[in-house]
């Protein structure tokens, strides 16, 4: 068992005990609080049909196929995975933009997948979204003031009519834009500024949860850091909970408290950022991490690279058993027959180690691929 230090406490590398304490303290802190959002066995299948007059269902794209996680107040949960793994569909389900096929999403104990009408509208006020592409997610024919103020038309109780302009100016100020820009149009802004407008719109209704779907992937490197810093500042200021969906593993690590790794509609592994990045136990997480190019030629030479063969299988026809087995170097007969459940692997259940976190693999085993130690 390799016991390596957490980055927060590099001095403790020699002793095992302090490391475990840190991890336990963090876990205890989270367990104390009631999660603000509980997702249980969420499923979304998109039907595949054949025929023009008489439509028959011939199958389904299993975009999300049984995903469970919790989100606590003030926490950032990162969700990573390759394109097509279902991470954006999860975002849409949480927003009730798509109807779930099965499963529940509890917001403060209330299942929002069953809500409609007024009750749904009330919940949506508290869950807002920031979209990926700041170029297409803002209406080019509306002024910035109208874009940010539009949520108030739908939820007039948040800001009375006379107050709105003042509120919008405040919001512009909060996200670091000049309040005098209120009458400008989106095309007059750069990509980073537009994403700030998108964030201001997300904040307008004082939500508790913001779901960010690839919020910085369309931005230039030097502007990405500005937006990430802004999001972290806003989280502290307003005690926001983020679900941060991205394919850039370095950014997810930077901003997240906990990270979930998705593969083909399922959660492969979930844990704190140190557990996932420094003590990954699922082979997919290990491969994903090892493939990330690190901007440091010295570090690169000490890293082992796992290059996966092939592509992600089609979600319309996922492999039996473990979905990763077709690309996995550890796959055995058992993996094809028996689907591994997302749970703490039995071999780590009794041991105090950062490897003790939920991982959906029959042969879960620790491996440091990032070379952080």
């Amino acid at each position, binding site marked *: 068992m390799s016991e390596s230090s957490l*980055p*927060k406490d590099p001095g403790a590398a020699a002793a095992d005990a302090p490391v475990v304490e840190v991890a336990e303290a963090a876990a205890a802190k989270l367990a104390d609080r009631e999660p603000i959002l509980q997702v249980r066995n969420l499923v979304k299948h998109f039907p595949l049909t054949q025929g023009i007059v008489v439509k028959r269902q011939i199958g389904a794209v299993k975009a999300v196929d049984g995903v469970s996680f919790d989100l606590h107040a003030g926490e950032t949960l990162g969700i990573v995975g*390759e*394109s097509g793994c279902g991470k954006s569909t999860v975002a849409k389900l949480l927003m009730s933009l798509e109807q779930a096929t099965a499963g529940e999403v509890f917001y403060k104990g209330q299942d929002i997948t069953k809500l409609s009408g007024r009750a749904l509208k009330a919940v949506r006020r508290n869950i807002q979204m920031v979209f990926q592409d700041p170029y297409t997610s803002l209406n080019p024919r509306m002024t910035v003031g109208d874009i940010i103020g539009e949520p108030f038309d739908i939820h007039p109780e948040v800001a009375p009519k006379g107050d709105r302009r003042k509120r919008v100016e405040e919001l512009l100020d909060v996200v670091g834009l000049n309040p005098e820009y209120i009458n400008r149009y989106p095309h007059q802004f*750069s990509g*980073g*500024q537009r994403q700030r407008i998108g964030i201001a719109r997300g904040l307008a209704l004082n939500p508790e949860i913001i779901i960010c779907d690839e919020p910085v992937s369309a931005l*230039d*490197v*030097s*502007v*990405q*850091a*500005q937006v*990430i*810093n802004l999001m*972290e500042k806003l989280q502290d200021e307003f005690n926001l909970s983020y679900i941060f969906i991205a*394919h850039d*593993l*370095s*950014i997810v*690590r*930077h*901003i997240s408290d906990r990270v979930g790794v998705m593969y083909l509609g399922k959660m492969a592994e979930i844990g704190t*950022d*140190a557990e996932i*990045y420094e003590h990954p136990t699922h082979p997919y997480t290990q*491969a*994903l*991490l090892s*493939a*990330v*190019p*690190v*901007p*440091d*030629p*010295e*570090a*690169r030479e000490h890293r082992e*690279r796992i*290059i*996966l*063969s*092939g*592509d*992600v299988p089609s979600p319309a026809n996922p492999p039996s058993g473990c979905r990763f087995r077709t690309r996995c170097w550890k796959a055995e007969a058992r993996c094809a027959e028996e689907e591994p459940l997302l749970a703490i692997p039995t071999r780590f259940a009794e041991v105090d180690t950062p490897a003790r976190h939920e991982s959906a693999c029959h042969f879960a085993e620790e491996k440091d691929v*990032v*070379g*952080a130690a």
Partner: protein
Amino acid sequence: MATSVELSTEEGGTEGGPLLDVRNLHVEFRTREGVARAVNGVDYSVDAGETLAVLGESGSGKSVTAQAIMGILDSPPGFVTQGKIIFQGRDMLKLSGEERRKVRGARMAMIFQDALSSLNPVLNVGEQLGEMFTVHRGLSRKQARAKAVELMERVRIPAAKERVRSYPHQFSGGMRQRVMIAMAMALEPELIIADEPTTALDVTVQAQVMDLLADLQREYNMGLILITHDLGVVADVADKIAVMYAGRIVETSPVHDIYAKPAHPYTKGLLDSIPRLDQKGQELYAIKGLPPNLLHIPPGCAFNPRCPLAQDVCRTEVPPLYRVSRDRASACHFWKEVVGDDSAPADKA
């Protein structure tokens, strides 16, 4: 503009010169709003078997330079106003359209970022790959198809024989990019320009594609210009790096040195502003402000409004490329301070 410091690391290689030598290249776009100076005096060179990474943000001129080299600049509005592009001893800018067409594809080829929109959706990939041979080499369609299968095998597309009749939309992103690479490789060019070849791909596939590209380059001893904004990809494959900002090269360096000790405040800012996978840092360093509008590039050093070290001289005088060491150069009046004040944080590696 006084910017001609010799940049090639290996002077006088085979046949007395590098494979490609770009000298003082200027490109401008004449638009209705005014003249956008996209490239303002770029010098770089690539030897056979060497990988040059050109790093920059959108609007830095990295892709426009590549288009000028390939001779595929949209003209009008784009015009090469000055400079030389010497490829295998001949100045490409002096060739006729017909001569240039013979070079393009056969001697130098390009791989584009977005494979789906670069491939023709109504032709199967076999026809598109075969076109290279029917047009340039005069092969029959049947021979061309056999060549296409061979190429697809070379870029490790499984079941090439069956897939040669498939259409681009039937391929995954990574496989499509392999088709693009196969197309660029078809006539065994001496130089390949890859413009953000893996930006649209997932990390696991990105690693496969970069590996393939590096293997092919080694096998055929090609020169490779890799255009990217990803500092991570660069670290893995490049021999040397040229960092571009507002149409100029602001720093050139062998790959190892630039990460340990950047010599330009822009490079340093970029390196500090990316989160690291193996360290959970505190707040990210953010370069303030925005990249400049090419219609109104700031006077003096184009980076001065965003630079923490900017002094009066930076607002008036364009910094030349100062020689930092034998094979490094930086276009910063205060490069000594940049290299110097970096020594402390560099310890942590």
